[in-house]
C-alpha cells in the first residue's frame, strides 16, 4: 500500500510538471488527467487503509473517486472542445494571444449581433 502511496505522490508531481512546462495545450490536458489520476489513487490509498467490516476498502472514498472520474471526463471534454474551436478559428492552438496581436484572423460568427 505504501508503494502505491509513493506512486500517487509521484504521479501528481509528474502531472503538475507536465501541466506547467508543456507548451502544447493538448499535452497540458493529458498532463492534467495524469495529475487527476494521482489524486484519485491517493483516495484509493485512503479507502484501502479504511478496510473494515469485511470489505477490502472503505466504500465512501471509492464512490467519491467514481464521481471524480466522471467529472474529470466532463472537464476534459469541455477543454478539448474549447481547444478545437480555438484551432478552427485561428488555425493554431497558441494560448499567448498578445504576441499574435494584429495577425488575428477575422472570426466568422462569434461577434455579438
Amino acid at each position, binding site marked *: 500500500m505504501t508503494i502505491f502511496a509513493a506512486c500517487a505522490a509521484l504521479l501528481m508531481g509528474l502531472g503538475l510538471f507536465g501541466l506547467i512546462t508543456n507548451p502544447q495545450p493538448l499535452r497540458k490536458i493529458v498532463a492534467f488527467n495524469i495529475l487527476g489520476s494521482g489524486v484519485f489513487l491517493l483516495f484509493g490509498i485512503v479507502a484501502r487503509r479504511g478496510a473494515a467490516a469485511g470489505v477490502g476498502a472503505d466504500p465512501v472514498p471509492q464512490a467519491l473517486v467514481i464521481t471524480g472520474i466522471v467529472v474529470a471526463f466532463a472537464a476534459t471534454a469541455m477543454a478539448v472542445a474549447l481547444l*478545437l474551436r480555438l*484551432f*478552427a478559428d485561428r488555425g493554431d492552438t497558441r494560448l499567448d494571444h498578445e504576441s499574435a496581436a494584429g495577425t488575428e484572423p477575422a472570426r*466568422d460568427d462569434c461577434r455579438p449581433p
Partner: protein
Amino acid sequence: MVDFLNAAAGMLLITTMVGLCRMLRAPTDTDRMMTAQLAGSGGVGILALLAVAGEAPPVLDVALLLALLAAFASVAFVSGASTSTSPSDRP
C-alpha cells in the same frame, strides 16, 4: 497454486514492461499502438490470473471490460490516423 498463478501474473507484467522498451524507441505511432494493444491483452491475462489466484470473481468483469475497450481504442486510433492530415474541413 496461488503462488504459481501470482508468479505467472508477475511474469506477464515484466513482459509488458519489456514491451514498453519498444514504446520508448518506437519509430511510428503505429508501433506505439501495437504496444498499447499488447498492454491491453497483457492486462487481460494478468487480471484473469489475479482473479483466479485471489478468488475474486469481480476481477474477471474488469478483464472482460478491458478486453472490450482495448479493441475500441485501436479502432479510434485507426480512424483518427487516416484523417490526421486534413484538419481544414472543420469550420
